[in-house]
C-alpha cells in the first residue's frame, strides 16, 4: 500500500531588532538571566506595551520578498494562557489581521524547483524561558527572551517529505538572513519550527489526522523528526489504529517523537483584540522607504559574484548560498586580488573546518583581513599552499594573523635559488644509489628527491624552484 505525506510548517523567526517588540529592553543573546528585562517585560501592574516599528519593517521586508500582501493596518490580539514564563498571563500576537498575507517560497528538491505557498506571517512576542533541572525542587525563570519579536510564518500543507521540509527551512534561513530580518542562528533559537505532519493513502482526497511536532531547531532534526513521525503514523494506520491529533516533542537523543502532556496544549486561548494597543498603521511612505532600501538577495549576489570576481557559477552559487559566507568573502576580497584562491579556500578547507565544528564562519576566530593576508602570502609565494594549510590551522585555533605565525615559527618559504641549490647538492651527495637508479630510468624517484629537500627545509622550499633546479641537476 502506498502512502503519501503532507507537511505544513510554522516557522518562528526571531527578528534581529535591537530592542523588544513592546519594550525598549535589549534583545542581546547570552546575557545573565533576567537582566534584559524592564517593567514591561516582567508584566508589572499598570505597565503598557508600545510597538517597536522596526519589527514591522522587518516583517514587511519579508512579506515583500515572498510576494505577499502587506496589511498596512494590522492589529494585535491577546492569546491568554497561564505559564510561569509568560509574565502577563497572555501573549500579544496577531490573529485576525496579520501584517503579512500569502506569498510563496521556492525550494530546491530532487525533482527541481518547487513553489510552496505561504498562508500568512504575523508578529508576536516570545515568552521567557523555564529551567527545570538546575535548582533542586524549584523551577527557574529567565525573562530575557520575554517580549523578543518573532515572525511566525505559516506555510500551506504542501510539503511532501522530510527532505523537502529541510529544503524549505534552508530556503527560509537563506531568505531571512539575506533580508537582515533575523540572524538565523538556529542553535540560539533564532529560527525554529513546528511541523504539522499527516499521512494518507495516495489518491485519497481527504487529509489524514495530523500531529504537530513542536520546536525543532536544526535542519538535521527537522529531517529526523519528520521521518520518525511519518513511519510511526504509517505503522499505526497499517495496524488498524488511528492517529491522535496531538502535539509532540522530538527527542534528539532517543531519535523519537512523543506526546507532550495534554495540559500543555488543551488550552482555550480566549483570543481577543489587545485593548492596550491601537491598530498599527504603516504609511505609504514607510512602505516606499522599505522598498527603496531592499537588500540584495542570494540569486542577485550569485550573479554579481560570477561577474565581478570572475568566479565559476558553481563557486559563486556556493558562496552566495549563505549570507554569512558571502559577506565574509566580500569583506576579504577588499584586501586581496586572488579571488579564485580566496573562493577555493572558503569553499574547501575552511568549509570543512566549519562543518566539523558545526559553526558559521562569523562564530570562528577567523577575520576577513587575516584570511586575505593568508591568500596574499600564498599568492606572492612567501609560503607554499601546503604550509598555508598548517598556518590556517593555527589561525583557526588561535585567531593569530598569518604574518605573526610565519614570523614566530620561521615558516617563510625559501625561494632563493642559491640556497635551494645548496640543499639539493647535499641531497644528491647523500643519496648516490637513488641518483644512479633515477638516471637509469627510474623516474618515479624524482618525488623522493623533492621529499628529501622538503624534509631538510621543513617544507619551506618553494616547490616550483625545487622542481626546476632538481631537474637541471639530475640531468
Amino acid at each position, binding site marked *: 500500500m502506498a502512502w503519501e505525506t503532507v507537511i505544513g510548517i510554522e516557522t518562528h523567526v526571531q527578528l534581529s531588532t535591537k530592542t523588544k517588540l513592546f519594550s525598549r529592553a535589549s534583545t542581546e543573546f547570552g546575557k545573565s538571566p533576567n537582566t534584559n528585562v524592564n517593567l514591561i517585560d516582567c508584566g*508589572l501592574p*499598570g505597565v*503598557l506595551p508600545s510597538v517597536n516599528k522596526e519589527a514591522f519593517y522587518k516583517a514587511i521586508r519579508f512579506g515583500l520578498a515572498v510576494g505577499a500582501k502587506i496589511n498596512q493596518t494590522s492589529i494585535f490580539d491577546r492569546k491568554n494562557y*497561564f505559564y510561569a514564563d509568560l509574565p502577563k498571563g497572555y501573549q500579544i500576537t496577531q490573529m485576525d489581521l496579520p501584517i503579512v498575507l500569502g506569498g510563496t517560497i521556492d525550494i530546491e528538491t530532487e525533482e527541481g524547483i518547487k513553489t510552496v505557498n505561504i498562508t500568512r506571517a504575523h508578529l508576536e512576542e516570545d515568552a521567557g524561558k523555564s529551567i527545570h533541572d538546575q535548582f533542586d525542587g524549584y523551577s527557574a525563570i529567565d525573562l530575557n527572551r520575554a517580549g523578543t519579536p518573532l515572525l511566525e510564518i505559516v506555510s500551506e500543507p504542501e510539503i511532501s517529505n522530510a527532505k523537502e521540509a529541510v529544503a524549505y527551512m534552508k530556503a527560509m534561513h537563506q531568505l531571512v538572513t539575506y533580508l537582515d530580518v533575523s540572524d538565523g542562528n538556529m542553535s540560539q533559537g533564532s529560527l525554529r519550527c513546528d511541523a504539522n505532519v499527516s499521512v494518507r493513502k495516495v489518491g485519497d482526497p481527504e487529509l489524514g489526522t495530523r500531529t504537530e511536532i513542536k520546536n525543532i531547531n536544526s535542519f538535521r532534526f527537522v529531517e529526523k523528526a519528520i521521518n520518525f513521525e511519518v513511519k510511526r503514523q504509517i505503522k499505526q494506520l497499517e495496524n488498524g489504529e488511528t492517529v491522535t491529533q496531538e502535539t509532540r516533542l522530538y527527542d534528539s537523543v532517543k531519535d523519537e517523537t512523543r506526546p507532550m502532556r495534554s495540559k500543555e496544549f488543551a488550552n482555550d486561548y*480566549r483570543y*481577543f483584540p489587545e*485593548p492596550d494597543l491601537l491598530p498599527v498603521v504603516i504609511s505609504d511612505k514607510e512602505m516606499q522607504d522599505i522598498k527603496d532600501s531592499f537588500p540584495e538577495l542570494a540569486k542577485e549576489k550569485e550573479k554579481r559574484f560570477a561577474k565581478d570576481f570572475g568566479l565559476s557559477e558553481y563557486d559563486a552559487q556556493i558562496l552566495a548560498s549563505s549570507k554569512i559566507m558571502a559577506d565574509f568573502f566580500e569583506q576579504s576580497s577588499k584586501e586581496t586580488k586572488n579571488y579564485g584562491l580566496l573562493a577555493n579556500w572558503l569553499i574547501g578547507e575552511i568549509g570543512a573546518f566549519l562543518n566539523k565544528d558545526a559553526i558559521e564562519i562569523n562564530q570562528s576566530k577567523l577575520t576577513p583581513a587575516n584570511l586575505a593576508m593568508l591568500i596574499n602570502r600564498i599568492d606572492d609565494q612567501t609560503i607554499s599552499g601546503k604550509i598555508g594549510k598548517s598556518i590556517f590551522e593555527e589561525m583557526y585555533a588561535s585567531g593569530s594573523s598569518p604574518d605573526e605565525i610565519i614570523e614566530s615559527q620561521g615558516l617563510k618559504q625559501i625561494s632563493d635559488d642559491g640556497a635551494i641549490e645548496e640543499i639539493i647538492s647535499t641531497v644528491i651527495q647523500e643519496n648516490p644509489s637513488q641518483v644512479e637508479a633515477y638516471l637509469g630510468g627510474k623516474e618515479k624517484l624524482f618525488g623522493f628527491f623533492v621529499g628529501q629537500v622538503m624534509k631538510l627545509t621543513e617544507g619551506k622550499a618553494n616547490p616550483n624552484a625545487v622542481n626546476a633546479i632538481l631537474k637541471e641537476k639530475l640531468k
Partner: protein
Amino acid sequence: MSIQFKTIRELREMLDEKAISSEELTNETHKLAEDLKELNCFVTMNKDASIEKAKLIDQADKTDSVLSGIPLAQKDLFCTEGLRTTCSSKILSNFIPPYTATAVMKLENAGSITIGKTNMDEFAMGSSNETSYFGNVHNPWKKGYVPGGSSGGSAAAVAAGIVPAATGTDTGGSIRQPAAHCGITGIKPTYGRVSRWGMIAFASSLDQAGPLARSAEDCAILLNEMSGHDSKDTTSLDIESTDLLNSINQPIKGLKIGIVKEFSLGDLDSEVQNRFEDSKKLYETLGAEFVEISLPNISASVPTYYSIAPAECSSNLSRFDGVRFGYRAENTGDLNDLYIKSRSEGFGDEVKRRILIGTYALSAGYYDAYYKKAQQVRRLIKNDFALAFESIDLIMTPTSPGTAFAFGSKGTQNPIELYLEDLFTISSNLAGLPAISIPHGNVNSMPAGLQLIGNFLREDQILNAAHIFQQNSAFHLDKPSMEEF
C-alpha cells in the same frame, strides 16, 4: 486656622499670603486624616515623604504652579514609586511599585504633595467600596453608609475636607457615582486624555483617570495637569493641550442640553426627579435650552458593559499569579496549585465573579455571542451619541438612580442590583466621552449628583456648564457635619 473643607483656590491663597506653610499644611492634613481615621478612606499614608517634600517646597518658595504645596490623595490603583500600591486587594497587599503612574507624576511635578493612597473597591470593581480588602469606607454624610465606588476613599477624603482634591479612575462611573454620593464634583475625561501608564488596569478600553474635588474649577486645575499625550501609553491622545481654566466662566446662553428620552426618569424616586427638574430650571434661567434626544441603543449599556469590562479584566488580572510579585500562597504543590491557591486566597469575591464572567465571555463558542456582540453594540451606542451631538452641546442625566445606601443593603443577594447603580454613567465609558458629576441638592438628606456628558474632547463645555451652575447655586458648598466621626 482650620484647613478642613478648603478648596485648592483657598489653600493657594493661604500659602501665597504665608498664612500657612506647605509643611504646616501637610502636617495639618495628616492630623486631620488621623482624627478621621474611622472613615477608613486611606489605605496607606505617605507621611514622612510628604512632609519632606513640603519642606523642600517651602525652601524653594516657588509658587509658579497653582498646585505647588497643595496636598492631594491618590486612589490606590495608581502606582507610586516606593509607596505601597494595593488596589485594595490582598493579592497586592505587599506590593511596592518601582515607578510612578504618569497622571500622579504630572501632579507631583506640578508641586502637589501626595499625602496618601485612598481606599477603593478591589481592583475598582464595585459601586460601594464594599469589595475592598481593607474594609468599608464610611460616607462622611452618614456613618454606616457607603461613599459609592469604586473611588470611594478619594470621594470620602475630599467630602470630609481632609484634602481639597484627589485622583480617581472611572471605568463605568467610578469617579462620578462616588462624587455624587459624597456631594462633591468629579470628572471622567475623554478616553485617552489622561495617560493610563501606571494605572493598574481593570478594563483597558474603558478605564480613565480623573479628579474629584470640591468644585468644577478645582477639577479643571487638576485635569489641566493630569492631561497630555504619553509615549508610554499608545492609547493616550496626541492632541494639543488646552487650558481648561480659561474655558470656564463663559456664558451659557443658547447652550443646548439633551435629555435622553430612553432614560425613563419617571421610574426613579420622586425626590431624585425633583432635584433633576430643579437643576433643569436653574439652567433654563441661565439661558440654556433643553432638547429631548434619543439614544436608541442606550438600554443595552449595562449588559454591554458587563460583557466587555469583565472580559478585559479576566485577561488584565492574569498577571497576578503569585510568581513575580504580590501575594503567593504557602504550601503549594505544582505550578497550577500555586496559581489556584494564590489567586483563590488573593482575590475577593467580586473580582473572582468578574474574572469568571469575563473568561466565559471570551471562551471558544461564546466569544461571538458575548464579547464580539458587545463590541458591536458598543459601536452602535457610540454612533447614537455621535448623532445626538450633532444637534446638542451636552447631555444631562442624574448621576445615579439613587443616593448613598447603608452598608450591606444592596447587591449582597443579587449583584445585578449594584450593577444598576451605573445605569446613567456606563454609556459615556462605552462611548469614550467626558462626563462630570456635580452636587445638586439632597435627596432624603443625602447628596444627589447631576451628570453632564460632553462631546468627544469637550471637557471645556461640561466644566464650564458645571462651573456656571456652581456660580449660581450653593449645593457644592454644603458640608457634612462630621459629628459622628
